[in-house]
């Protein structure tokens, strides 16, 4: 045996185990990797911000005693019936088809208990969803699956989807495994085939046309309900400005931590901006146009806790929206199902092959046996608990900052732990007074 000393084996940073497995999988299958969820990489996020709290320079309010308002109104600019929410946290658009019927029902039940809204998705509006959601936002998507004027008129708001945080510039994918008879019927497509939703609206291809499209939808619905315009976070200043030009009552910006039911991994991880980087430019656009607080801003993409909610609101959002977190509240990736996740070649907390329709939690599936595992009443209760916890957390932070309303939180209440987060959020780093980028406003 050769006893010559050797240096310790080093695996390359560039070609780590994950990248090597990616290359081997691509070589073996010839298909790009498709998965659900949002960006998993460590990128600057709300955890990189801290609230300052109060002492002498600011006067705190008594925790859990003094009132801290959480209500928010969305879409008051043009709509006869704006959306009134008890809490500034809504449920993001997720399609029937990607999600099971019981999962959609549970989202509606949970949102009702907490006094907030849910949102349809690419699959159209189901009677169960409408029936179980007191406030339902109807997504108007490029695919137009199931789109009809009757459902438009049943909606409490319409969200024109121009993009999604997980995949700005890309359309949806629903693989054939999840296209059951009912899903196929709703989408006017044959059962069991792969569905590729278009990325562009078929009859609207720019900001000027969007303005007219918004007019059409308002005329069809009698100007009764708000029009939201949703974009994926990529050029938030200009997209916000153009959404306002397009007639939005509410602008929704979805950062790259925002999820998808199924997209190419390369999109999820490499296209779009971190949610944190989207808020300041969007707020600036609204201010520059003189419509800040008149056109409301909803931020989504990786919102998890009351601290995230409070930080997004402090940076200028009127409301946040959750998708992945709501699914986890229902039971997605529950460690109690670890054995079943192992059988699928993964582990609880990492399961993201939602497009395969085998979700052991019964949430992201159309398999009747699997979806029967989710009790929509219990799921709704769990979601409501979670929404209330986040709201109470945000309230406690706001009181500590001397605010009697979540909407009174402001950038001045925040500092950043890192220069990157300071730059993105437009707040100073800890111990500093200079705000990166303050010499220029965009």
């Amino acid at each position: 045996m050769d006893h010559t000393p050797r240096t310790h084996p080093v695996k390359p940073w560039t070609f780590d185990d994950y990248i090597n497995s990616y290359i081997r999988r691509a070589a073996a299958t010839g298909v790009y990797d498709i998965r659900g969820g949002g960006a998993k990489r460590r990128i600057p996020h709300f955890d990189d911000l801290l609230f300052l709290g109060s002492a002498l320079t600011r006067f705190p309010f008594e925790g859990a005693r003094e009132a801290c308002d959480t209500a928010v109104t969305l879409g008051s600019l043009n709509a006869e019936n704006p959306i009134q929410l008890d809490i500034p946290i809504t449920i993001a658009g997720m399609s029937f088809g990607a999600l099971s019927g019981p999962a959609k029902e549970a989202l509606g039940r949970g949102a009702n208990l907490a006094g907030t809204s849910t949102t349809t998705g690419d699959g159209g509006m189901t009677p169960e969803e409408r029936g179980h959601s007191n406030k339902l936002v109807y997504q108007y998507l490029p695919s137009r699956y199931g789109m009809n004027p009757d459902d438009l008129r049943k909606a409490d708001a319409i969200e024109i989807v121009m993009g999604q945080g997980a995949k700005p510039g890309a359309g949806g994918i629903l693989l054939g495994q999840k296209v059951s008879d009912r899903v196929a019927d709703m989408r006017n497509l044959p059962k069991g085939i792969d569905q590729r939703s278009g990325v562009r609206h078929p009859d609207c291809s720019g900001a000027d046309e969007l303005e007219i499209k918004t007019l059409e939808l308002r005329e069809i619905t009698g100007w009764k309900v708000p029009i939201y315009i949703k974009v994926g976070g990529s050029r938030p200043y200009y997209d916000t400005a153009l959404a306002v030009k397009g007639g939005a009552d509410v602008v929704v910006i979805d950062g790259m931590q925002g999820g998808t039911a199924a997209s190419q991994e390369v999109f999820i991880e490499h296209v779009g901006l971190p949610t944190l980087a989207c808020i300041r430019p969007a707020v600036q656009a609204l201010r520059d146009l003189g419509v800040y607080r008149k056109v409301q801003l909803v931020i989504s993409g990786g919102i998890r806790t009351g601290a995230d909610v409070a930080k997004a609101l402090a940076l200028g959002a009127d409301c946040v929206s959750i998708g992945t977190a709501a699914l986890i509240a229902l039971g997605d990736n529950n460690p109690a199902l670890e054995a079943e996740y192992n059988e699928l070649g993964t582990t609880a907390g990492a399961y993201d092959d939602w497009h395969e329709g085998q979700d052991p939690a019964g949430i992201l599936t159309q398999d009747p046996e699997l979806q029967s595992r989710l009790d929509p009443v219990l799921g709704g209760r769990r979601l409501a608990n979670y929404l209330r916890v986040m709201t109470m957390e945000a309230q406690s932070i706001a009181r500590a900052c001397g605010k009697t309303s979540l909407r009174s939180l402001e950038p001045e209440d925040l500092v950043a732990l890192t220069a990157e987060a300071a730059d993105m959020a437009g707040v100073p780093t800890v111990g500093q007074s200079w705000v990166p980028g303050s010499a220029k406003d965009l």
Partner: protein
Amino acid sequence: MTVLDLSAIKLRELNATLQGVEPDSHAAFEVRNPQGGHAIAVGLNAPIDVTINGSTGYYCAGMNQLATVRVTGSAGPGVAQNMMSGKVIVDGDASQYAGATSRGGILVIKGNATSRCAIQIKGGDVVVHGDIGHMSAYMAQSGSLVVLGDAGADLGDSIYESHLFVRGSVKSLGADCVEKEMRPEHVEHLSRLLHEAEADAKPEEFRRYGSARTLYHFEVDNAGPY
């Protein structure tokens, strides 16, 4: 016939009047001075007759249900988009996206239509007496497109189960779109559509195109069209 003059009333009043008609009234309306305006006669949901005397802008008769709408001039982009039922007739030409995503009813264009005609139709029928532009019937899911003239490039790209009938030439077919056999049931179906569209043509003069269904499930050897 009730006259609604857009030089005297606002769009909202026009649409509210048309949308508020009792379902069984079978009323008739004439819209004057459309002046190329957008979103005229959208969201109708009763079997009424509406004649628009002149040319319209975007999305005329959008999401129509049950009504018969006639445009005596030309129509702008997205005419009869997402129509559910009923009939829309354009005596002149139609701009892009005519009949986009329609799920029922029939759109008849007596003149020509330009690009992306019948894009993503999901059950509705579109009959064009003249020519159509490029990328027409893109991702068409079901329903039919009938063209008495010529079709532009990339007809039926990524088509699903729609039926395409073209009497003239086709500049090129899009991905997964192929010429298909014209069987008796197709002749019968086309004959009915031609009759309904007041089109002076014989089914035997048409060629049929549809999906080769090779893109219905991802195969790496088909990666090019993706």
